[in-house]
């Protein structure tokens, strides 16, 4: 037998009743179970994470620069020396670089180094060679 107030209760009244009854709460010691000591402890070095991240980025950039530099040196070594004909046709290196100006090459060119069989970048080497061929000074 239910409480007399529930006899012939309408849906609207039922909603009001259900909203109004006291509501249960978790036990007072539940927080100690939910947050046991150490459960949410930060991992070792967690407080240093931002600094470690920055240091790691710097180390990566440095390593990348080292690798690029090493690859450049390897590439330079792998380049063949200028063709002997080109070297033979070229005038002897001149400290004032006037012969290069005669060929129409810029002073900043590393032509002297290339013709002296020293290592230069691949692009520089081929642009130099093309310039020399175009001016009829090599071949």
């Amino acid at each position, binding site marked *: *037998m*239910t*409480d007399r*107030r*529930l*006899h*012939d*209760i*309408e*849906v609207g*009244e*039922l*909603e*009001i*009743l*259900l*909203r*109004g*009854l*006291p*509501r*249960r*709460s*978790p*036990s007072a010691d*539940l*927080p100690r*179970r*939910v*947050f046991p000591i150490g*459960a*949410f402890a930060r991992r070792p070095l967690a407080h240093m994470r931002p600094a470690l991240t920055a240091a790691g980025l710097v180390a990566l950039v440095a390593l990348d620069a080292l690798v690029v530099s090493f690859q450049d040196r390897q590439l330079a070594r792998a380049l063949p020396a200028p063709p002997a004909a080109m070297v033979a046709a070229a005038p002897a290196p001149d400290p004032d670089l006037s012969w290069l100006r005669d060929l129409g090459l810029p002073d900043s060119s590393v032509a002297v180094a290339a013709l002296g069989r020293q290592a230069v970048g691949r692009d520089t080497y081929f642009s130099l060679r093309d310039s020399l061929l175009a001016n009829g000074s090599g071949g």
Partner: protein
Amino acid sequence: METSRVLEAAGMKRGERAVSAIPVDLGEAYDTYAAPLYRYLVTLLGSEENSEDALQEVFLAVGRVGLRHIRDIQPYLFQTARRQAVSLLRKRRRRGRESEVAAQLSWIDIEACSEDDRALAIDLGRALQSLPPEQREIIVLHLSEGFTFREIPSVCGIPTNTVASRYRLALGKLRDALKGDAS
């Protein structure tokens, strides 16, 4: 009907609910949401012990994910609680221990009711627990925790229309159950 007295006894405002603010830490999240989640779990599981275990799992899950990675904390907490409850109910079913749910607990705190309202609260609690879980959860979210029908889909993963129809069906069943007991 002395509903106003019942409301006064409850010491609560109508439509009172957990505030969907952004908690700054786990302790604040617990203070805001533990009680609503607990009532939701108790109503689904019918057991205080299971509900506290599930609640612990919910907050451990939040701790593992990290509060700042959770965009909307309230649906996340209720969804996680729901998954825990469904998992526990499945385990019980597999072990054939569904009778354990006969504890008939709901969000209603019978001990806190006045002497006059205690029998009424017991009847309502019993009628609530006779509902299928999918209807019971709509009732607890809407009537106890103040979720609107538009908010409930974010927890239960069902369309708003289904929420509304389940709610109407559940209230009708409750009324019928109470009338049935009265006869």
